[in-house]
């Protein structure tokens, strides 16, 4: 089939079909990337209406970023991500196990699936605006809390570090746990029925089955979820930006790295924005490499997993 009949060479069509993609990527991603890296070595910013630079200053931008609040913002980003991610993965695992349990017939499962995935499609900025409005001191949440007597004066949720961070974490949790649940469900349903039946015959209860069968077999997809979630967390911007109006209040404790980048871009400090981007590029480059290894090794991995499963089964049968 692969043999080219009558010596006609079709390979030029391959090139023609991928040209738009390659060209577009080259213009809108590669050139900007090179430009970004280049200006990270320059002093280049705007003060008032005067443009300063570009003058080559080597690694000065990088070192001054390290001395600035960048580390603090990186920590903020990690904290906000963790607050959202830990409940997200825990709840998603629990729900995925429940939903895929054939013994446990959950009524209205389709309804629950539709509802938990819903927040994922909501515009993050509108969602953050909504949270800001209903959690404000004279908003509906305070009104409800006061009318049922939990508190007698309005709680200033956005005034405390804990409140702001928890609310941002809650938003991230709500937006992503449905998505993770559905991904993990697909992974669990991919486990062969034979393995589960064999385990049941051997007297595995549901707790044991979870720890010794389900968890090890969905490990690759759990790792994938973790890494893609870290990449997503690194890009966290919409929710804290709108929620705190770009200030990262209180006291810039909810300022993320991309918000910091956004501030430099808005004030046209191209040098600093450039070197911050390079830092982000290096981190996400490492993460991309991990994802790349995972997606390309997954076949070999699952083959090995299947082989192992088979061996185990064989052992059991004897």
């Amino acid at each position: 089939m692969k043999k080219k009949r009558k010596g006609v060479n079709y390979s030029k069509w391959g090139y023609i079909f991928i040209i738009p993609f390659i060209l577009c990527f080259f213009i809108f991603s590669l050139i900007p990337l090179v430009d970004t890296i280049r200006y990270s070595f320059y002093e280049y910013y705007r003060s008032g209406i005067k443009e300063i630079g570009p003058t080559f200053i080597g690694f000065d931008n990088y070192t001054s970023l390290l001395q600035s609040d960048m580390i603090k913002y990186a920590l903020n980003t990690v904290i906000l991500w963790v607050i959202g991610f830990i409940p997200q993965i825990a709840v998603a695992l629990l729900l995925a196990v429940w939903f895929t349990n054939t013994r446990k017939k959950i009524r209205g499962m389709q309804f629950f699936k539709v509802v938990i995935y819903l927040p994922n499609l909501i515009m993050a900025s509108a969602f953050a605006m909504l949270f800001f409005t209903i959690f404000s001191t004279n908003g509906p949440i305070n009104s409800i809390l006061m009318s049922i007597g939990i508190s007698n004066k309005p709680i200033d949720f956005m005034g405390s570090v804990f409140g702001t961070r928890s609310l941002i974490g809650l938003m991230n949790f709500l937006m992503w746990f449905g998505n993770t649940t559905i991904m993990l469900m697909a992974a669990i349903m991919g486990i062969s029925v034979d393995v589960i039946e064999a385990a049941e015959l051997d007297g595995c209860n549901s707790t044991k089955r979870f720890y010794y069968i389900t968890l090890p077999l969905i490990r690759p997809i759990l790792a994938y979820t973790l890494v893609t979630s870290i990449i997503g967390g690194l890009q966290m911007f919409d929710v804290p930006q709108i929620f705190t109006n770009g200030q990262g209040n209180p006291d810039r404790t909810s300022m993320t790295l991309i918000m910091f980048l956004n501030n430099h871009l808005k004030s046209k400090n191209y040098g600093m924005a450039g070197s911050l981007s390079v830092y982000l590029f290096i981190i996400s480059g490492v993460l991309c490499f991990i994802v790349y290894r995972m997606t390309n090794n997954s076949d070999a991995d699952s083959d090995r997993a299947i082989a192992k499963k088979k061996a185990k089964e064989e052992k059991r049968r004897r």
Partner: protein
Amino acid sequence: MKSAGINRLRSFVTYTVLILLSFMCLFFFYILIINATRSHADLQKGFSALPGKYFLENLRNVANDGSFPMFRGIFNSLIVSGSTAALCTYFSALTAYGLYAYEFKFKKAVFTFIMAILVMPTQVTAMGFLRLITKMGMYDSLLPMIIPSIASPSVFYFMHSYLQSSLPLSLVEAARIDGSGEYRTFNRIVLPIMKPALALQAIFTFVGSWNNYFIPALVIQSKNKMTVPILIATLRGADYMNFDMGKIYMMITVAIVPIIVVYLFLSKYIIAGVALGGVKE
């Protein structure tokens, strides 16, 4: 066998957790919709679980507000998201087909390269991107949000996997023997086969573009070109306490309800698609 009591307790716990989570997901939208139907004066008095009668009034206020042209914003968002979805799915399919069906020298290199940048965040090139489009004269226009979507590695990856599982190369060969040109074969034979994948990715790209905030906020300056997320952000930045709260709730409603309605119609399909993406990767 476990006793019936334990089983009953277990299913009680299961449903309690599920209902609680569903409540958390829906409660905020419930408050939003209820409050969008109430007047500013009503809202100041506190929360009420029942809707008011000011829905149309609030909607009219939003429609007539010159400083936050919400409906103009929805129109802009529709243009951007619609064109993005169309361009992105078409060209991703074309690229995937090019790499799937043909043998050429750099095939492997190109594929590896695209896989390597699969999850690269767009934010890292934002600074260069901003300078580039300014030089190209596209600053403050909708084009910089549309054209770059031609190169979307993740959509490409999905399309490529789909082709691998559903397009036998013998079909392409047969079309050749019947005298169909290569480009025509793609449009008339390959695209119809890819319809499910195209529809699914079109939905996800549309939603992604509809909700996108980072790049548009850097590119758009003038009011009549703003998309919905930027308008929401301006609303947040404005002197907020002097506003008609009914109108604010209505603006948020207008921004998110269209997507919810579309989702309710296509939910089964969308959820199946998410699961598919999970298995593929």
